[in-house]
């Protein structure tokens, strides 16, 4: 069965690239592009996996993640943090907020698919 | 009003020029008093022939009253003029401190 992934990201070109490679790999892709109502959207769509950007309009990805981890429905939802800020401190922040995996932009398409498959397999 | 306040603060002896300035200010303060006194003199003049007789003096004619009042007036203007020439006030410094 197809796994459903939700991409929360504000750069339209990046959304398009990820959507393309994931759908080609057999994923069903949903997208959302602002931080305000991201938590509500996740709860509503109930995806199998979330790709989350950090610098979103309205709300930081870390805050969204912290909120998701506080909800019983999404406590164990696999979340991949995908950010253009690649310093060590950013990684720490992501782990503290409860990220399942952390990747920096730019990424290799193959790595993304590999990471996602690893996450859903767990 | 300020004389007592600044006794301690101001020096005992002032330079000749400042001393002169202080006395000129005193004169400026006294001038209206002098004016008032001089213009009160007409109160002493008899008001009617009867009063004049009682006082043993003649009634005062209007012409001499005019001469007196306008004479005092001119005198005051001249004194005020002389004072204004010799006194220098600086608008932004407190000039009336001390004696």
């Amino acid at each position: 069965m197809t796994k459903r992934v939700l991409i929360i990201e504000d750069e339209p070109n990046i959304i398009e690239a990820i959507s393309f490679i994931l759908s080609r790999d057999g994923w069903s892709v949903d997208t959302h592009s602002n931080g305000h109502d991201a938590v509500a959207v996740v709860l509503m769509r109930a995806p199998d996996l979330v790709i989350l950007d950090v610098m979103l309009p309205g709300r930081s990805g870390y805050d969204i993640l912290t909120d998701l981890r506080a909800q019983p429905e999404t406590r164990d939802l696999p979340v991949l943090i995908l950010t253009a800020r690649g310093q060590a401190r950013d990684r720490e922040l992501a782990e503290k907020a409860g990220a399942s995996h952390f990747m920096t932009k730019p990424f290799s398409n193959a790595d993304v698919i590999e990471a996602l498959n690893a996450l859903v397999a767990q | 009003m300020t004389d007592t306040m600044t006794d301690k603060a101001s020096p005992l002896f002032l330079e000749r020029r400042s001393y002169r300035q202080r006395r000129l200010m005193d004169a400026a303060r006294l001038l209206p008093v002098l004016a008032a006194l001089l213009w009160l003199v007409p109160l002493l003049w008899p008001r009617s022939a009867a009063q004049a007789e009682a006082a043993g003096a003649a009634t005062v004619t209007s012409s001499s009253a005019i001469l007196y009042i306008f004479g005092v007036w001119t005198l005051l203007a001249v004194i005020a003029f002389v004072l204004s020439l010799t006194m220098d006030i600086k608008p932004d410094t407190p000039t009336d401190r001390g004696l």
Partner: protein
Amino acid sequence: MATLNILIAVCLTYVALLFAVAFMAERAALQGRGNWLRSPWIYTLSLSVYCTAWTFYGAVGYAARSGLEYVTIYLGPSLVMVGWWWALRKMVRIGRTQRITSVADLISSRYGKSGLLAVCVTLLAVIGITPYISLQLQSVTLSFSSFATSDPGGIALMESHDTALWVAIGLALFTILFGTRNLDANERHHGVVMAIAVEAVVKLCALIAVGVFVVWGVAGGIGPMMERIDASEIGTWQMDGGRWVGLTFLSAAAFLTLPRMFQVLVVENEDERHLRTAAWAFPTYLMLMSLFVVPIAVVGLDLMPAGSNPDQFVLTVPLTQGQEGLAMLSFLGGFSSATSMVIVAAIALSTMVSNHIVMPIFLRLTQGGAGGPSDVRHVVIMARRLSIGLVLALGYLYYKISGGGTALAAIGLVSFAGLAQLLPAMMGGIFWRGATRNGAFAGLVVGFVLWTYCLLLPQFGNGLPPSVLEQGPWGIGWLRPQALFGIEGVDPLLHAVMWSLSLNTAFFILVSLVSFPSPLERLQGAQFVNIFERSGNPQSWKGGIAQSEDLMIMAQRILGPAEVQAFFQSEAARQGLAGFLPEPSPDFLARLERELSGAVGGATAHAMVAQIMGAASVSVEDLLAVADETAQMMEYSSQLEAKSNELTRTARQLRAANDKLTQLSVQKDAFLSQISHELRTPMTSIRAFSEILRDAEGLKPEDLTRYASIIHAEAIRLTRLLDDLLDLSVLENGQVSLNLRDGRLSDVIAHAIAAAGSDMHPLRVRRVGPAEGIFLTTDLDRLAQVFINLIANAQKYCDAPRPELTIAVTRREGRILVDFIDNGAGIPPESQGMIFEKFYRISDRQAGGAGLGLAICREIMDRLGGTLGYLPGQGGAAFRVSLPVAQRMAAQ
């Protein structure tokens, strides 16, 4: 007929001349050429508004009836002027340092900026002065009819036209035109003062000319004149001692308290030293004005038929002697006396009415300075204009109702007595620290009631029923208005003056002694009484969380944007801060309040600042400062204060510098991470799509093109970012070479508007100002780059439903200012200091930029010798580009 027509023609020419004089004086003052306007002579001459038509015509009539008594009206002011060192010097100093606008403002400011007192004084002044104004209208009408009677056709003409109405309308026009031209913080009216000085010369010359004619032309020299005087019915000294002293005192008091005298003595005073000249020159003027009064009266009594009006002798004596030219001059003298009084009185009263009655009501209705719908400045000026119209209308109405009869002639002294009621509160206020608001209020009310009851109502016949006059109200004998407490046989005027002023003073002192002043009153009292010892500010405002920007918005609407921006900028600089917003320190607020009070009066200014600051708060330190005022303490603490001010300033500068450094260091940290983020984002798309292109087989041709073009666009974005970074670094290192060219500012703006793609964008661009005529020699491309950036910012960030950008060009003090003002939400105060920093974005909103635009613009303006800054308080985001005059070539 001919004479009257000539008279009217002369009169109109004279009025036109006055308009021209006033206009030229205003022009000269505006262009800074007005040094001669500020001479002590002009000041002295302007004081002659004291000599109204009542004195010009009336003095002769007065002398014909009561001999030398008329001089008392001039002796009082002479005493006050000669004694200027006592009271006037202090009043002028207080008026100048506290920006006092009127008598009402003086009294209200002294007693804790009390609105109630201001209203009381204003009402008293309006009631006291209105009949006086109608007296002036009457005198002009009478003098016209004096001419008309000698001219058969004239009477008909007089009857068909309402002279008083035309005079009132003309005066209202003049006063509105020159009395409310500007809402100057100092409330000075150069044009009006100049016109009055001219009128002063005219009336003095006229009276002296008639006098010389009478003494040498009719009587035949000084000796015969004196004999003639002694032989006349006023030939002996018959003065009542009480009236001699009482009237002198009354005129002295009125000289200090009449609103029009306060206006010329204090408000229009340019320099305290002018008093020194006026001290002897004005008594001389008064002496000359009264010198020929008795001769004219005596000759008039001899020559004129019995029963003719002695008030018109100045006119009718030359007329009967066939001296029409002299009569004409004399008419102009009387006309001058009447008009100058009405003009200044109307200005003074309208200032009081608008500042203390209209403005407080307006502010209450519009919920204060910050929230009202329109420019308060216009409201103030409109209020002034309406008040002037109202005052003159009242004067005219009074004239009509009273029938213009002889009852009016007595109003001069009645009016003096009314205004003299202000004397205790005024003198007590500036000489006695213990005087309180309640005391002043009690004294004023008692004095006012007694004046009305004992003088005003009985004077105007129908005011009181005869039974009250004869037996007292309800038959209580000791309450008879002209014999209070059973003291009979005193002259009614003296009786009223004595009782009203002494009870006024008694209540003032007693209530002051038993009541306790509020802290603000005590501060103001100390300020006023010790005006020569300290010129510090009343420390009435404390910190609080005042919003400087709110204050600025409010002040702009009263004083006008240019003045307020300059004021705020200099205040910020005084505190060691850059930009337009100083911290709301007590010093700054006190100075702002004083600026405002110059326009709307002390009580209103205080209320307006209070509305923004929250409650008026006076702290314990302030009270201590008031209590510890020995001379030594003052000396010592002023030194300490200077030091601690210096320290505070340094500390504030250091704090500001430190805050900025901390912020910059945080930014510096963020800088790498920012650059990395900005570079990585486009790079991500490029990498992802190039991998897609590489790996994916069987892509549709249109996808292929699409992905390639995304890669292309992102590569361009990356290049632009690198260009910006490079540009900025070149500008910052000063390595940039400028390409100087000549051009027109309007072309640069037009180019920028076009390049920003304005026609495609909903943002409407409005251009204001004389950009056409301004030629520049500068790097036009760089300047255009700045403009484009500012326009593009407005396109991106202006969030109004119908976005609009105003580009306003002004020239000020040798600089060209180009303001870009949009109608959006503006930039929050906490961000205003940061927007010119690199990578700073107000929100996370992705608007395409990397946050380098404004930083680059500021660097460019720096290179071009200009500045770029944020202009707060304009209703939206507003940026000001300022170019130095050196950039401007000679305008064509």
